[in-house]
């Protein structure tokens, strides 16, 4: 047959023979892109040092992954954008004033210990950036809680330090917090824009929401985790956060401060370490929200988002096992078996 000559070049593989366009790299680089507004705002408020800290995190994360893998004669996976993302997220979770070795140590812990030693992307139990940060907070509690005052307009920052809104709320109460920012409206506006002390990338809620919108639009994240997480924080802040008894708290302050928006949209949604069934994700989000508020209201730290997500990371596999999506034809099967 005339066409036979070609036959030996044919590829044989199992169906399906066509695939969709999504790749891990495309997803990860889009997430990186979605954090660009928050990164820009961090430089805007905290000056060039913000870029230095975040850049150093990214560099150490990428390099440590690359050299770990090449030294084991494995293929370097830095092209998939996930090491970059871990570095970026770690950077955005640090204060501006940390000395240079903090980003390096944090990235090493995040990439080598939390991710690669567990088998690499897909096998890690905990969110790498958050473990990096938790390690730093425990090992360098002083350095990790010096908060610079935002200066705006990309200028180099002065040495003035201050407390974070959640810190003030915890130590001195809501009245003092409002007083410091002027009035309630000023407080909300500052929190929304990011004009307040805190970790580099967590302060500008508006920039974070912009990035989150991109991820939701592309379908890379769904509403399940962020919504249930944030709603739980809001309800608990309102119900339990006030001094005048039940339902006198100010949920807005709690929603706009700390690392909630960054955590809920960008860290709790980490595919590998959250449940993958949507119903389970709602449970996960509620758990994150509840633990966050328990720490914020009763715990020793002013902020609880990081520990909340890490704790819930432990439960993710359990949740996935317990929650099943509705199987086609499952209802009738039970009837059938009873017969």
């Amino acid at each position, binding site marked *: 047959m*005339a066409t036979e000559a070609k036959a030996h*070049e*044919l590829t*044989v593989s199992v169906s399906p023979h066509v695939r969709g366009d999504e790749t891990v790299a495309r997803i990860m680089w889009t997430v990186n892109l979605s954090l660009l507004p928050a990164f820009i705002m961090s430089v805007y408020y905290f000056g060039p040092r913000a870029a230095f800290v975040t850049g150093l995190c990214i560099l150490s994360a990428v390099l440590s992954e690359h050299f770990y893998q090449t030294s084991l004669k494995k293929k370097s996976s830095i092209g998939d954008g996930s090491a970059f993302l871990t570095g970026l997220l770690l950077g955005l979770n640090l204060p501006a004033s940390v000395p240079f070795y903090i980003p390096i140590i944090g990235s090493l812990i995040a990439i080598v210990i939390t991710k690669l030693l567990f088998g690499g992307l897909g096998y890690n139990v905990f969110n790498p950036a958050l473990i990096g940060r938790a390690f730093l907070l425990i090992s360098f509690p002083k350095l990790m809680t010096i908060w610079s005052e935002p200066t705006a307009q990309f200028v180099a920052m002065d040495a003035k330090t201050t407390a974070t809104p959640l810190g003030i709320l915890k130590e001195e109460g809501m009245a003092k917090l409002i007083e410091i920012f002027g009035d309630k409206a000023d407080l909300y506006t500052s929190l929304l824009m990011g004009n307040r002390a805190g970790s580099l990338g967590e302060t500008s809620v508006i920039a974070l929401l912009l990035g989150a919108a991109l991820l939701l639009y592309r379908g890379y994240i769904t509403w399940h985790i962020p919504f249930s997480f944030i709603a739980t924080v809001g309800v608990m802040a309102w119900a339990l956060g006030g001094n005048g008894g039940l339902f006198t708290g100010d949920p807005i302050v709690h929603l706009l401060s700390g690392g909630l928006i960054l955590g809920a949209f960008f860290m709790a949604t980490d595919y590998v370490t959250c449940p993958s*069934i*949507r119903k389970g994700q709602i449970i996960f989000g509620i758990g994150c929200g509840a633990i966050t508020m328990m720490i914020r209201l009763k715990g020793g730290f002013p902020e609880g988002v990081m520990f909340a997500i890490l704790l819930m990371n432990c439960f993710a596999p359990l949740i996935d096992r317990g929650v099943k999506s509705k*199987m086609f034809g499952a209802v009738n099967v039970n009837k059938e078996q009873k017969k």
Partner: protein
Amino acid sequence: MSKTATFERGIHPKYHKELASAKSITQAKLPLRIVVPVSQHIGAPAKPAVNIGDEVKRGQAIGSTTGFVSSPVHSSISGKVIAIADFPTSAGRMVQSIVIESDGKDEALSFIEHPDYMNLSADEIKTLIKDAGIVGMGGAAFPTNVKLSPPKEKTIDAVIINGAECEPYLTADHRLMVERPREVVEGLKIIMKSLGVKEGHIGIEVNKPDAIKAMESAASGESNIKVWPLEIKYPQGAEKMLIKAVKGREVPSKGLPMDVGVVVQNVGTALAVYEAVRFGKPLIERVVTVTGNGIKEPKNMMVRIGTLMSDVIEQCGGLVEGAVKVISGGPMMGFAQWTLDVPVVKGTSGILVLAEDEFVSTDQYSACIRCGSCIDVCPMGLNPSILSIYSEKGFYEDAKANNLFDCFECGSCAYVCPAKRPMVQFIRLAKSQVKP
């Protein structure tokens, strides 16, 4: 068309139907030689009923049934039997096949016609269908007369003709509905009669508006036949999904359509049933979509059963430079071929040739990142991610406990997976390692 019916989950692949959807069905050339496997269906293979050297005519039975779930095979040309031996088939197995060399005369047996076919009894209809060797032509190739003979305790109340044709690229059913709608409707009526069913449905995805129109007008005089526009979504044409869309019923896990009172037949099968019952014509030809960027001239062709793929491809201008993959069937569930010298059989709905630009290598895949996309799309509501991970680690029993055997290998999970994991391969591996 207002509301379109559908099922839950599923995917929206790129369809590429435009390559062949406007091409009218053309008659393929009389083949010089045919290779007819005795097993082109699910069930017991047929037994050769001829010997080497025998002269046969078009339509003559050359293999006879060997059990209840079995189907005879016929010669699609006139000529001489030159070999009976094992030959490769498009499903990748070697199967005993009868090779016939054409005498160029294309002489047919005289078939027994039934102009009054609607007056035949259910049993007479089923016998005609069985003797004509009709099997499901959508790909599964289950003997049709068996499907039409459900056990007594099952009450069937509806017949659905599957015109979804949800596989990308394929347009064979589409063309049949546009060009021969009346015969498809008659086929449906015969099937309904054989089952004693009052309700007939035809489900068609809305990306075939001309087919919907043609079928609607062909069925306009039949008050008990309804045409259903279906949402464009893969795998809309899977039996269980189609029944869910049209009748709202869920076939139970491990169950069959008849468990919910429904029989589904493909468009091509309905036509074959009509021709068998009305004209006594056995299943010796079928419409095959020859398509893909790897083929010079995409076509829909009426091809004699047993014609070699290489022969068909040649009649479509041959392969283009850089054709990399030839698939029997559609791109989602079809079989990749290692040789083109395999015959078109009763279940061959298409010959798809992918060029380099359509081809995706699946050699490189990475660990599951647990993104959940596959869970969101699995039409069976399974967790493909966990199935693939269990299979990868060799925990086949765990895979089984997670409803492994409810997977019908539609490939939706693999299509969406960003880590490009060979999901269906993992699932097949696990299935081969444990008992259902």
